[in-house]
């Protein structure tokens, strides 16, 4: 026990630094994912056919291949085509585009579950399709997408762990270093798992709160 606490004491500052790195990557990638996923989801439902197909191809590409391959492709593959990214940028880009594909799909489902009458009624009072999407459909779809989006946030926190393979000192990267430095893989990985659980737990509680705050009074979560 004494030994474990000593190890924890030594490892702690590194793990905190790793946690901060993990949070930076996760937050950045999620924001990039929203920036990409939101227009992609809308385009896949309301865009012209050629756009729907193009966006569908993007989604299939990122959902159909392992995240690790995507990361290797961006970090090790693209330089041979003359495109080189620093590690952190490569990680953000890969995770962000990957998350964007998933977020677009969640949003597509939510957009399609807003009843068609909402669009009809919006057009009937003279709104253009874009106005109707912005003022009527999206505000409802974004509420519907929150539970799925919460899952995406939690998945992202853990997916960031792949970035240690391109030598980013995130939580997982620090764990790898510490485990070999102290020859103590079992306790280190246990501690790191604990860090992830706390991260995910706190995030989960925050997201549940947002969900409750944005609920439409009188509705239990289902549309009309």
């Amino acid at each position, binding site marked *: 026990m004494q030994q474990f606490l000593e190890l924890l004491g030594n490892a702690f500052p590194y793990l905190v630094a790793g946690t901060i790195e993990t949070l930076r990557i996760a937050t950045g990638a999620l924001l990039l994912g929203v920036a990409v996923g939101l227009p992609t989801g809308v385009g896949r439902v309301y865009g012209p056919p050629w756009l729907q197909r193009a966006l569908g191809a993007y989604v299939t590409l990122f959902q159909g291949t392992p995240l690790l391959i995507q990361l290797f492709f961006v970090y090790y593959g693209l330089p041979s085509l003359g495109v080189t990214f620093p590690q952190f940028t490569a990680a953000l880009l890969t995770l962000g585009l990957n998350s964007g594909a998933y977020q677009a799909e969640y949003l597509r489902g939510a957009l399609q579950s807003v009843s068609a009458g909402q669009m009809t*009624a919006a*057009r009937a*009072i003279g*709104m253009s399709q874009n106005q109707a999407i912005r*003022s009527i459909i999206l505000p409802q779809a974004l509420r519907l997408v929150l539970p799925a989006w919460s899952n995406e946030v939690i998945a992202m926190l853990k997916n960031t762990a792949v970035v240690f393979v391109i030598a980013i000192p995130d939580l997982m990267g620090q764990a790898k270093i510490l485990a070999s430095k102290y020859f103590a893989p079992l306790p280190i990985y246990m501690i790191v798992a604990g860090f992830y659980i706390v991260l995910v737990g706190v995030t989960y509680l925050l997201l549940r709160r947002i969900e409750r705050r944005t609920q439409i009074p009188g*509705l239990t979560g289902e549309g009309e």
Partner: protein
Amino acid sequence: MTTAPILRIEDVYKSFGETRVLNGFSLTIQPQEVVVLVGPSGSGKSTLLRCINLLHPPTAGRIWLEEQEITAPGVNQDKVRQRIGMVFQDFNLFTHLTALGNVMIGLTKVRKMHKQEAHDLAMLELERVGLVERANHYPAQLSGGQKQRVAIARALGMDPHIMLFDEPTSALDPELTGEVLEVMQQLAREGMTMIVVSHEMGFARQVASRVVFMEGGIVVEEGPPAQMFEQPVHERTRAFLRKITDLDEGGK
């Protein structure tokens, strides 16, 4: 009548794929008329309303709203729809907005009013339908009758020149239809031009200036309610009206 018609529908056809729903439908409506449109299900009543406000533009034929041919190419359809109010069978209130918000959103987003101005006008419209005290309720917190009255207020807020009602009371429990019909009756008294698809024969008798019976996508017969109910010319009209009048009275 020498006044210019408010709406002129000329030989309108509408098909969905292979199915032809409207078959050369023509009808002219004068300002302040209340036209009740009846006909068996599938006769094209709802499609006609959706052709009039261009939600489903006609396949062929022409429609004039006041002096403008709205089926002409290059017409701004959003602008046309602002002048045509529409009320749906299943209300279609915006679920994420309060009653007030439902009326306001068209004012701020489409009519580009300032918030305060929109708020005040929206409250006036809610007052017209008797729902000021429900202004801050969400649709899920309103009864069916209240929802439909909010939907009417939402349409009125756009200051329409004509109102289309697509079976406004069909989704309501019988005890809730009265409050909606009352609002419509009051609108008619104020001089609103209305086309009402409805099988509320009491309303048709009392409020309609004309009853139009349609079947197979065309007008079979039209006339003042008294004539249509007492001495229709066509056997089909007679049979249909007898059937729904019996149902109507049986239900009361």
